[in-house]
């Protein structure tokens, strides 16, 4: 149980990077981008293929991010220059990426052109390289020793993963927050808010939509590249339903933590990604559930997260109205009494 939750927190941080990408398109740019299902695998596949081909994991990850950026830009071009509906642009790119991803992973074998999965069991990854250094610090031993002495049964194999992904996510969040406050960032936000207005202030909305989609999918691909190295495999089916997971994280986070400022909302999205993973892990522990039910549970979580806030809003509104009504009643009562006294 605890190890399952611990694993979900690690994964939650990795998925949080993807969720930030989804937030950028869905909320900031107001563009429902379905490229995500494909670009997540592009990131995972590119990183895994390059690692197997002998490149340094850091270089492999950077190339994966660039690949995601290009995929996002293509979706942007389809929409802005090709005048294709946003949803359809994303779907077209997603389906195209399926074949492209097979090709990318196919680079690792000589005779075959496409390849559906790449195991990274014995390869160097960003994580394995980090662990070499982390292990020499001896932090795991001391924390776990302390926990066992406290009488806590569960101790994770290593704290290193959660530390490194948390640090990465914090850095990305800070850069993300800063970027949305720069002149270009403000223009991107206004593009999602009011295109007519931002055009009247000499902004080329097409360029910004393309840039925004590129950056979003770069984040998604980064998340995919990390996930492949974390789970020690890349698979063509990794991305199925990824957009819904991203949306679930955004919606859950926003519903719980609010959207008052950008800084708060990005924090909410990250927290949402982690909470989503934990809820999913707990749901899968119910006996009748099977891992195959994961997508169904995801869909149900999103549906609940979409409907519940509406219900709460309505209730709050009702309570507010009732209170105001009461107040008005009592005021008129007081006034009429005053009138009686005067008379």
């Amino acid at each position, binding site marked *: 149980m605890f190890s399952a939750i611990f694993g979900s927190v690690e994964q939650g941080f990795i998925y949080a990077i993807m969720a930030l990408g989804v937030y950028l398109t869905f909320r900031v740019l107001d563009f429902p981008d379905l490229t995500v299902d494909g670009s997540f695998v592009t990131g995972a596949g590119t990183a895994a293929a390059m690692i197997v081909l002998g490149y340094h994991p850091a270089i492999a990850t950077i190339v994966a991010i660039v690949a995601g950026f290009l995929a996002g830009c293509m979706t942007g071009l389809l929409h802005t220059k090709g005048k294709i509906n946003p949803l359809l642009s994303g779907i077209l790119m997603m389906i195209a990426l399926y074949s492209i991803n097979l090709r990318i992973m196919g680079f690792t074998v000589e005779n075959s052109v496409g390849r559906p999965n790449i195991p990274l069991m014995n390869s160097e990854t960003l994580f394995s390289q980090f662990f070499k250094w982390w292990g020499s610090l001896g932090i795991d031993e001391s924390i776990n020793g302390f926990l066992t002495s406290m009488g806590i049964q569960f101790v994770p194999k290593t704290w290193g993963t959660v530390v490194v992904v948390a640090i990465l996510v914090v850095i990305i969040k800070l850069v993300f927050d*800063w*970027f949305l*406050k*720069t*002149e*270009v*960032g*403000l*223009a991107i*936000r*206004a593009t999602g*808010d*009011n295109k*007519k*207005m*931002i*055009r*009247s*202030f*000499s*902004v*080329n*909305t097409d360029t910004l939509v393309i840039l925004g989609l590129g950056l979003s999918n770069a984040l998604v691909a980064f998340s995919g590249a990390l996930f492949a190295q974390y789970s020690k495999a890349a698979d063509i089916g990794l991305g199925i339903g990824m957009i819904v997971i991203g949306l679930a994280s955004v919606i859950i986070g926003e519903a719980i933590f609010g959207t008052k400022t950008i800084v708060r909302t990005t924090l909410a999205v990250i927290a949402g990604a982690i909470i989503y993973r934990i809820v999913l892990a707990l749901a899968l522990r119910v006996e009748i559930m099977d891992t195959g039910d994961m997508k169904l549970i995801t869909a149900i979580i999103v549906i609940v997260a979409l409907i519940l806030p509406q219900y709460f809003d309505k209730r709050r509104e009702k309570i507010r109205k009732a209170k105001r009504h009461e107040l008005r009643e009592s005021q008129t009562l007081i006034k009429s009494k005053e009138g009686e006294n005067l008379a």
Partner: protein
Amino acid sequence: MLKLLNINKIFNESTADEKIALDQINLELKVGDFVTVIGSNGAGKSTMLNMVSGALSPDFGQITIGDHDVTKLPEFKRSQFIGRVFQDPMSGTAPTMTIEENLAIAYSRNRKRGLKIGVDKQRKEFFLHSLERLHLNLENRLNAKVGLLSGGERQALSLLMATFTQPSILLLDEHTAALDPSRAELITNLTEKLVKKDNLTTLMVTHNMQQALDLGNRLIMMDKGQIILEVGEVEKKNLTIEILMEEFQRIRGQKFTSDRTLLSS
């Protein structure tokens, strides 16, 4: 400063809905000219404004701003020179962003946008001083989201955003039409003040005849895609609504028909 040369525009050409929106429009604004445009619905006033802004492009003709031929320039490039306020108070600002962020976007109009923080200390100071001129107490609400402002406040902010970078041309498209009378008056006064301050070359479309008479140094009247009357600086001072109505009747041989114009005069 602004020159429209032989502008023609036909909507839905060679269909049953064909409509001549602009028919041989020629207009020239000198630096500091403030021209008010009146006319009945469908006269082509807004179409003409959209030609200048680049939201629409003419079928024939040429548009120049200063020395630039902008006829083929896309809307977003042209807006470096042009400040605009729309009729709908919702159109001119980004509702989910704060007042200072909106101002920062407007501030970057004629500058290259980069990875500089949009609202730094120096700019904040400048925004504060600019907002004080509105006397709406917005300077104390820099971090409020614009979506929370009233229509009048939003329109005042739009006006400030359109003017405080001193554009070559200011376009006002019935920017008081969606407001209640007292708010409309506030915006009208503000318009006069801000335009005077920077001596902005302005083209203002209005449905309100009184407003067209009160503001600006020149007036044009449009009907069926043509400019049918031009009133210069000297004559405009003695102009009244009655004279305008008579002129229209004389030129067109029919009564000026626009309930909205009559009601709002």
